[in-house]
C-alpha cells in the first residue's frame, strides 16, 4: 500500500459517518486519466441517466448520428450503481467522470480530492430523484422498529440513504442486521433478497428504487397483498430524502478537455428538454383518458432503458419503465444556475456560460424573459372542477423537496388557477344576447358589430363596458368566482404545506409562503377544446423562487 493510498483511507476515516465506505473502498492509487476513446461515463439505474443514453443515440456506445456523435464525442456509458467501484475507477483514471448523488459526492469529497488532478468539479445536475425508498415488513411500523431488523441494501447506491435513516431513528449500524448485496436490482438484487428474508420469517427492511418499491408494495401508499410478486403487508416505511443526481469530473480532465465536458453537458440538456416533453405527453394523455400509446420516440427510449437496466428491473415499458422516468425530476438549462447557487457549496463549480451551452445544444436560453429562470423548484397540484380538495399524500415528496429547496433567500409562491371555459362562453353568450356579436355560419367565425373581430376591437368593446354583465350573463362575475376558487385552491395547498411541515417537525419559516389566486388570468391553455385541456388549467403551481438580495 503506497503512502497516498494510506492517506486516503485515513482521511476518509476521519468522517465517522462514512467509516463503512472508507473501509470498503480500501487503498486506491490515483493515476492519470486514460483519455483513449471511448471515454467512460458511469450511469445509475435511474430515469435521469436515460436522457444521456438518448443523447448517445439510445446506445451505451456513442452512435455517429446521435447528438453526442454529431458533437464529436465518443463515449461509453458503464454501470456505476456500485459507487465504490466507480470511485476506484475515477481515482485510478479509468474514467474522468463520477456519477452519484450530491449527498454521496459530499461524503466522498475528501477521498476524491486526494490530489489536485482528481479534485472533483460538479458539472451538471441531471435531476432530482423522487424515488429511493425504505420498504419494510408489516411488523416495522416506525423507524425505531428497525432496531433488531434485517436490513438489506446495496452499499454502492444506498449507503448514504441508510446512514441517514439510521441517524434519524437514533440507531447505530450495530442495531441492525445488515445484508449487503452486490446487485441493485435483478435476481440477486435487493428486492429478491428482501423476498427471501421475508420468506424466512425475518423482520425485514430494504432500500430500493421505484420499480422494486412498486414490485414489493404495489405503490407508495399501498400495502403488498402477496399477489403478483408483492410481499404481503409490505409497505413504504420512508420515502427517502430526495437527492440531486450529479456528474462530477476530474479537474485535470476538465482543464485539458473543457470543450468536450461542455458538450457532454449541452447534449444531455438538449435531450432533457425533449425527454420531458415526450414523457409528460404520455403521462397526461394517459391520465386524461386520451391514451394514444407511448409514441415511437418515447418507446425507443424506454426500450433501450429496458435493455440496459434489464427486463427483471423493467418488465414492461408502459408501467415500469415509464414509472422509472416519472421518478426523475429533470433540471433543465434554466434550473442549472440556481442549482449550483443553492446546493453546491463544497464541490467546485465549473462556472459554465449557459448561453454558450444553449448554443451548442441548440436550445433557447433567455433568462431575461423566462419567468422560471429564478425558479429553483416547482411542481403542480391538479384539481377537479370547482374543487379545492386534493390528495395531500400524493404530493408529500414534492412538499419535502420544496422545503429542501427553500433554504436561503427564497419565497415559496403558491399560485392558484382556474379554467377559462365558462368565462369565455359567458362573453360569447352576453355578446350574442346584446347583439354585439354575431356568428358567421359560413366562415365559422364571430363578428363584432358586423366587423371581422380583432383583438383591438374586442379589447375596446370590453373596456368601454359593452360586455359588462346583466342578471343572466356576467363574464366579470364569473371571472371573480374563478379568482376566489383559485385563491381557495392556493390556500388549501399552502395549508397542506404548513401541516406537512408541522407534522414532521420541519423547521420552516411560514413567512416565506406567498399565496395568491389569479383566476383565469394565466391559463396554460387560453381556449380549451375539451375536458382534458380544461383540466390542465385547474391547478395550483408551487414555485420556490430565489429572492434577490
Amino acid at each position, binding site marked *: 500500500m503506497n503512502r497516498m493510498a494510506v492517506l486516503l483511507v485515513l482521511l476518509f476515516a476521519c468522517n465517522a459517518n462514512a467509516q463503512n465506505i472508507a473501509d470498503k473502498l480500501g487503498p486506491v492509487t490515483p493515476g492519470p486519466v486514460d483519455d483513449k476513446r471511448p471515454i467512460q461515463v458511469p450511469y445509475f439505474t435511474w430515469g435521469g441517466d436515460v436522457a444521456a443514453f438518448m443523447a448517445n443515440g439510445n446506445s451505451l456506445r456513442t452512435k455517429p448520428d446521435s447528438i453526442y456523435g454529431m458533437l464529436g464525442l465518443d463515449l461509453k456509458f458503464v454501470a456505476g450503481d456500485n459507487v465504490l467501484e466507480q470511485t476506484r475507477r475515477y481515482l485510478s483514471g479509468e474514467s474522468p467522470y463520477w456519477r452519484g448523488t450530491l449527498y454521496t459526492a459530499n461524503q466522498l469529497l475528501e477521498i476524491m480530492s486526494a490530489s489536485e488532478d482528481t479534485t472533483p468539479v460538479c458539472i451538471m445536475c441531471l435531476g432530482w430523484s423522487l424515488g429511493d425508498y425504505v420498504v419494510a415488513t408489516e411488523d416495522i411500523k416506525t423507524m425505531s422498529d428497525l432496531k433488531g431488523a434485517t436490513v438489506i441494501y446495496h452499499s454502492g447506491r444506498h449507503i448514504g440513504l441508510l446512514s441517514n435513516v439510521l441517524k434519524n431513528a437514533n440507531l447505530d449500524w450495530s442495531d441492525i442486521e445488515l445484508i449487503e448485496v452486490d446487485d441493485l436490482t435483478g435476481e440477486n438484487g435487493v428486492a429478491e433478497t428482501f423476498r427471501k428474508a421475508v420468506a424466512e420469517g425475518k423482520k425485514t427492511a430494504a432500500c430500493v428504487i421505484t420499480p422494486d418499491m412498486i414490485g414489493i408494495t404495489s405503490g407508495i401508499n399501498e400495502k403488498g397483498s402477496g399477489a403478483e410478486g408483492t410481499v404481503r403487508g409490505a409497505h413504504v416505511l420512508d420515502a427517502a430524502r430526495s437527492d440531486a443526481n450529479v456528474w462530477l469530473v476530474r479537474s485535470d480532465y476538465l482543464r485539458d478537455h473543457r470543450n468536450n465536458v461542455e458538450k457532454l453537458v449541452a447534449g444531455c440538456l438538449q435531450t432533457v428538454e425533449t425527454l420531458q416533453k415526450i414523457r409528460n405527453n404520455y403521462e397526461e394523455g394517459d391520465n386524461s383518458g386520451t391514451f394514444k400509446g407511448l409514441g415511437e420516440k418515447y418507446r425507443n427510449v424506454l426500450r433501450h432503458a429496458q435493455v440496459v437496466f434489464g427486463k427483471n428491473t423493467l418488465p414492461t415499458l408502459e408501467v415500469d419503465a415509464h414509472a422509472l422516468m416519472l421518478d426523475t425530476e429533470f433540471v433543465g438549462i434554466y434550473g442549472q444556475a440556481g442549482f449550483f447557487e443553492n446546493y453546491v457549496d463544497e464541490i467546485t463549480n465549473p462556472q459554465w456560460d449557459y448561453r454558450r451551452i444553449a448554443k451548442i445544444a441548440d436550445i433557447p436560453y433567455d433568462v431575461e424573459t423566462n419567468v422560471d429562470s429564478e425558479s429553483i423548484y416547482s411542481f403542480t397540484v391538479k384539481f377537479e*372542477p*370547482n374543487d*379545492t380538495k386534493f390528495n395531500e399524500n400524493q404530493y408529500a415528496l414534492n412538499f419535502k423537496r420544496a422545503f429542501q429547496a427553500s433554504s436561503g433567500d427564497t419565497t415559496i409562491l403558491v399560485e392558484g388557477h*382556474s*379554467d*377559462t*371555459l365558462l*368565462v*369565455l362562453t359567458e362573453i*360569447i353568450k352576453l355578446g350574442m344576447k346584446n347583439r354585439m356579436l354575431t356568428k358567421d355560419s359560413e366562415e*365559422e*367565425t364571430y363578428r363584432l358589430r358586423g*366587423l371581422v*373581430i*380583432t*383583438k383591438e*376591437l*374586442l*379589447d375596446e368593446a*370590453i*373596456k*368601454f*363596458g359593452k360586455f*359588462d*354583465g*346583466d342578471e343572466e350573463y*356576467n*363574464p*366579470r*362575475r*364569473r*371571472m*371573480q*368566482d*374563478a*379568482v*376566489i*376558487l383559485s*385563491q*381557495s385552491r392556493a*390556500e388549501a395547498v*399552502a*395549508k397542506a404545506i*404548513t401541516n406537512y411541515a408541522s407534522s414532521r417537525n420541519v423547521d420552516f419559516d411560514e*413567512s416565506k*409562503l406567498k*399565496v*395568491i*389566486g389569479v*383566476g*383565469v*388570468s394565466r*391559463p396554460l391553455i*387560453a*381556449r*380549451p*377544446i*375539451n*375536458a382534458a385541456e*380544461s383540466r390542465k388549467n385547474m391547478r395550483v403551481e408551487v414555485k420556490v423562487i430565489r429572492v434577490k438580495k
Partner: protein
Amino acid sequence: MNIMLSLLCLMALPAGEAVHHVVIVLDDSGSMGDALTSDPDTTKLKIAKNALALALKDIPEGSKIGLCLLNGQYDPDQRRTIRWWIPFGRVNKFQADQRIRSLKTNGGTPLGSAIKEGCNQLLEAKKTDLYGTYRLLIITDGEATGEEEVEKVNNYIPDIMSRGFITIDVIGLDMAQDHTLSQKVHNYINATDEMSLVSGIKSAFFDTFDSSEVNFSDPKFSKEYELIKALPDELAFGAIESLNDSGNYPVGQKPQEGSNVGFVIVLMIILALAFCLLAFLFLAIP
C-alpha cells in the same frame, strides 16, 4: 352551486398579498341612536359598534379594510368632519377598535352617496391589486332619504353589480321589513339583535363563489366547447386580459368611447376626400 369557505381556514395562513378588500358602509344616521326593539336598554349603534369590533378581530391578517360613514363625523385630530372613519388600507386592529368605539349618531341616510364613495375606493384598489376579493358591506337601519339619494341607489347598485367583481352584502338592522336593497344585491341579512348582527357581519367575510368551471358530469358540457370553437386563441386570451384590466371606472360614469371604429371611419373619409382631390387635379390639369 354556492360554495362557502371557512374563515378559520383562511386565518390559519400567513399574510401574503392583500387577498381581501372590504369596505364597510355604516349607517350613522340619527335613527341608529334609537333603542333596539328586542332590547330597549341598548341602541342600534351600540350593538353595531360591538359587532364590528368583534368581527374585526377575526379578519384575516393583511386584509385591506375601510369604514365609510353615511354622514361622517368630526375628527378632533384632523379638526374636520370626515366620512372615512377608518381609511381604506391595512388596519391596525387595536386602533380600529378604538375608532369604532368612538362613533356617534348624526344626520340622515344619504345611502347612495356613501355607496358610491365606498365602491369607488374598491375600484381604485382594483387598479393595483388585480386579484383577491372585493366586498362592499352595507349596514343600515333604513332606506335612503330624499329623492336624489333614492335615485343614486337605484342607479349605482346595478352599475356596481354589472362590473361583476364587487360583492355587495347588506345587513338590515332591526328593520320592520326587508330593505329594498335585499332583492338587488348579492346577499341580504336582517339582523334583530347583537348576536345576529355579529353573525351577519362575519358571514360577509366568508368567501362564497358560484361554479366557475364546467361540470364534466353535466351531459351538456361539451356544448360549451362548441361555443368557443370559433374564437381564436389570441382573441380568447385578449378577452380575458381586457376583462381583467377594465371595469374599474368610477361608479355612475361610463368610459368615453373613443372608438377605433370612429377613427377608422374618419380616416376613410379623409382618404376618400384626398382621392377626390387627386382625381379632380388629374382631370383639371391638361
